[in-house]
C-alpha cells in the first residue's frame, strides 16, 4: 500500500510551519496509523532527514497522549477512536492523507505534530481532586453508592485527556474535558463537600487558559474516544449556576 502523507512540519514553538508531502510506500492494511508514521520516519532517517515528531505512548487508546488531525478530523475518520487505534485499512491505496497538529490557542505547538496540553493539568490543579490525605480513609463499604450513581460517575471519569474535544471545537472550548472531571467527582458523596468550590475554580481556570466558550455544537462528543456525552456540559452548567447562587 502506498499513500501520500501531507504533514505539518514546524521546527519549534516559535518558528513558522508549513505542509510537506511524503510519498510513503511499503505500508500494509494491518499497520496502525502510527506504525505507518514510524515507517515513514525510518525512511526519513535513512535519507538523513529529521523525523516527524508526533505524540504517543500506550498505543492502546487509554493514555490520551496521541492525537492529530487527519483529513480535517480529530483522530481521523472514525468516531470515538484514538489516533493510535486507527488502522491503515481505513485508507485506500493512493490516498493523500493530510496530517496536522491540534490547533487551539491554549495548546501551543511544540514541534511538528506535537502540542503542549499542560493547560489541562492546570485545570485539574484547580480542584479536580478530593482533599483527603493518605491514611485518613474510612472503611470502603461504609460509603454506600448506588450502582446508578457509580456508573454515571464512571462514565464521566473515563475521559483520557487527549484534547480531541478542544481540537475539534470551532471555539476551542474545553467544556467537555472540564465537565467530565467535575461530574465524575461531584456526583459522588466523597466529592460533595468541595462540589461548589470545585466547579467555580475549575471553570475559572478553563477561561484563564484561553479556551473558548461552548456553543453546544456537539462536535466534541462525536470525536471523544471515551464517549463522554455532551450532557455533561449541561450538567456542569447547572452545577455552576447552583454554586454561584449558593456562594
Amino acid at each position, binding site marked *: 500500500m502506498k499513500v501520500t502523507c501531507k504533514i505539518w512540519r514546524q521546527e519549534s514553538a516559535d518558528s513558522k510551519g508549513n505542509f510537506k508531502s511524503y510519498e510513503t510506500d511499503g505500508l500494509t492494511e494491518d499497520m496502525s496509523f502510527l506504525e505507518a508514521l514510524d515507517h515513514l520516519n525510518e525512511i526519513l532517517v535513512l535519507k538523513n532527514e*529529521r523525523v516527524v515528531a508526533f505524540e504517543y505512548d500506550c498505543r492502546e487508546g487509554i493514555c490520551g497522549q496521541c492525537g492529530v488531525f487527519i483529513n480535517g478530523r480529530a483522530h481521523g475518520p472514525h468516531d470515538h477512536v484514538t489516533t493510535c487505534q486507527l488502522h491503515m485499512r481505513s485508507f485506500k491505496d493512493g490516498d493523500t492523507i493530510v496530517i496536522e497538529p491540534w490547533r487551539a490557542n491554549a495548546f501551543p505547538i511544540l514541534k511538528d505534530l506535537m502540542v503542549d496540553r499542560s493547560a489541562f493539568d492546570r485545570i485539574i490543579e484547580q480542584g479536580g481532586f478530593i482533599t483527603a490525605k493518605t491514611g485518613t480513609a474510612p472503611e470502603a463499604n461504609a460509603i454506600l453508592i448506588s450502582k446508578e450513581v457509580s456508573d454515571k460517575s464512571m462514565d464521566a471519569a473515563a475521559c483520557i485527556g487527549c484534547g480531541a474535544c478542544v481540537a475539534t471545537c470551532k471555539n476551542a472550548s474545553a467544556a467537555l474535558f472540564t465537565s467530565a472531571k467535575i461530574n465524575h467527582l461531584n456526583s*459522588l458523596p466523597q466529592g460533595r463537600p468541595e462540589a461548589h468550590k470545585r466547579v467555580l475554580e475549575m471553570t475559572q481556570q478553563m477561561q484563564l487558559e484561553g479556551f473558548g466558550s461552548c456553543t453546544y455544537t456537539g462536535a466534541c462528543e462525536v470525536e471523544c474516544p471515551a464517549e463522554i456525552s455532551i450532557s455533561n456540559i449541561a450538567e456542569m452548567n447547572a452545577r455552576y449556576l447552583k454554586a454561584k447562587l449558593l456562594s
Partner: protein
Amino acid sequence: MKLNSKIPEGKLEEKWRNYQANSHLINPTNKKKLNVIVVGSGLAGAGAAATLAELGYDVQCFCYQDSARRAHSVAAQGGINAAKNYQHDGDSVWRMFYDTLKGGDFRSREANTYRLAELSAPLIDHFVQQGVPFAREYGGVLVNRSFGGVQVQRTFYARGQTGQQLLMAAYSQLYKMIRAKKVDMLPRHEMLDLVVINGKAKGIIVRDLTDGTIKRYAADAVVLATGGYSRVFRLSTLAIGCNGSAIWKAHKRGAYFAAPSFTQIHPTALPQSSDAQSKLTLMSESLRNDGRIWVPTKKDDARKANEIPEDERDYYLERRYPAFGNLAPRDIASRAAKERIDAGHGVGPLKNGVYLDFKNAIDRLGLDTIEDRYGNLFKMYRKITGINAYEKPMLISPAAHFSMGGLWVDYELMTTIPGLYAIGECNYSDHGANRLGANSLLQASIDGYFILPNTINNYLQTELAEERPNVDHPEFERVEDDVKEHIAKMMAINGSRTVDDFHRALGKVMWQECAMSRNRAGLEKAIIQIKNIKKEFWSEVKVTGSEAELNPELEKALRLADFIELAILMCVDALQREESAGAHFREEYQTKDGEALRNDADFMYVSAWEYNTGNFKLHKEELKFEYVEPTVRSYK
C-alpha cells in the same frame, strides 16, 4: 557487600507494626528542610510524591510523558486485589499472602509478601475516598471478581479501566499537592543518570525532552518509580516509551539488580500480525473468567472456528489443570499456549494464536451480562481487529508483560545505594518468580502510598545533620559530562541502520531465547548475539536531528542502548539459575509432564547482581520460609 534485607523482628503478623513502632520520626519543621526526588508519576511515583508532600517534604517529581496522567499504570484493565473478604468466600490476609507467595513459586520474602496482603484492604479504602468509581452492586456495596491463580473473589475493578481510574486518583492527589506548592512537577523530563556522592544518592541528571537541555537536580534522597522494562522484547503490552534506563543507570552506579530474567509473559494479548508492529495489545485476563481457551485437536486445521465441532476442540487448560482450568496462573497459561502453538495447533493467519471463546458464557449468562462485564474490551478488540467477538471467538497469544525483576530492595524499599529507593514495578520485592494478576497495581500503590512514606524517615533523619545537597558539587559536573559524552558519541555515529531496526533485532533474540522457555545453549548463543548487536549499534546506528532540540529519535536510541545492556544481564541471570521457577522455565529442568521443576536445595535465594564494570557479580540473598512450607506449585 553483604545484603541486609532488614526484616523486622517478631511474628509475621507483627513485623510491619513493629517496624513502624520502632522507626524514626522527623518533626514537621525539619521535614520542610528535606527534599526528595521522585522519578516516575505512575501509581508508585504519584502516590509517593503526593504522600511525601502531604507529610511535609519538598518533592520534585519527573516523568517522560507530557503529563503525569499518562504513566503506563493507566493501561491496567483488570483490577486490583485486596483481602477484604467482602464476598464471604473464606478470604483473609493470610490466604492472600499464601496465594501470592505460592504464585511467585517461593522466590520472594515472606515478610514483604505478608505486608502486601496486609496493606491491601486499607488501600481500597484510600482509593474509594479519593473518588475511584469502583464497580458496585445495586445496593451500593463494592463488587469483586476473581482473577487468575486464586480461588476467591478479591479483585476490585472499575469497568475495564481500573488502572486508569486508580492513576487518575493518584494524579489528582498529586495535583492537589502541586497546587499546595509542595510538589514541583516536571513532565517531559527523562532521567539519564544518577549522582552518587560519598556513597549516597544525592541527585539525578535529566534531559528536558522539549529542547534537549541537560539539567541537574539535587536532593536528600532519590526514589525511582519508573515502571517495567518489558520493552526489552520490543513487542510487549507496555507503552512505547517505557524503559529501563533509570534503573539501569542506577545499577551501573552501584545498585544491585535482582532477578533480571524474571519476566512475565501474559497469555491473553492480541497476536502479532507483522514486523512493523510496535506493540501488542493486552486483552484483560478477567476475560478468562468467562471465556474458554481452546485450539483445534487437528493440526493445521484450516476450518473457521465456528465450523469446528465441540469434540474436535481441545480446551487444553481445562484438560491439563482441571482445578483451575482457564484461570490457571499466567506463566502456566502462557507456556501451555506456546506448547500447543509450537505443536502445530495454533490458529489465525500466522498460526500464532489460540481461541478465547465466549459462546458458552453468552448462552449461560446472556449477552447483556457479558456486555456489562467486558463491553469495552470487546469494543477495543473490534477496533483493532475489525472482528465482532460476540459472534466469533477472539484470537489471543502470549506477550511480554511485566518485570518481576528489578532493583534489589530491602524491607524499607531501599536499594544497595543508601538514599536510593526503588518502588513499584521497577523493584524486585513481592512477586517472586511470577506475579499474580491484579497484584501489581496493588504493589505499586502500597509501595508509594503506605510503605515508602513510612520508611524513608529512617534514612532522612540521618541526613538532617549533613550538608544540603548542591548541584554545584563536582560529582554533578562529572556525571553530567558522562551523560553529554554518551549522547555526543551516539549522535556522531551517523551509521546506516535505524534505531527501530536494532530494537527489532534485539527483540527477536530475547523473545526466542529469554522469554517463555529457556535453555543453556540458547542463552549462551543469545549473549553472543546481543553483544554483537551492541557492537553493531555503536558503529551503525543513525540518529538524525540534533541533541539540542526535541528529538524523538534520540530518545528512542538512548533507551535502546540501555535495553541492550540490560538484555545481556537478563540472559546471564537466566543462564545461572539452573532450575525452573514461576515464569523462569528452563527446559532442562522440568517434570515428565512438562511442569516446572524447582530446585530449593540450590536456588532458594534471590539473585542480586552487581554491575562490576560489566563482569556481573552474583550476590545471594538466602530466602527463609518460617511460616509456610514451600510446596510444589500445582494447579491441577
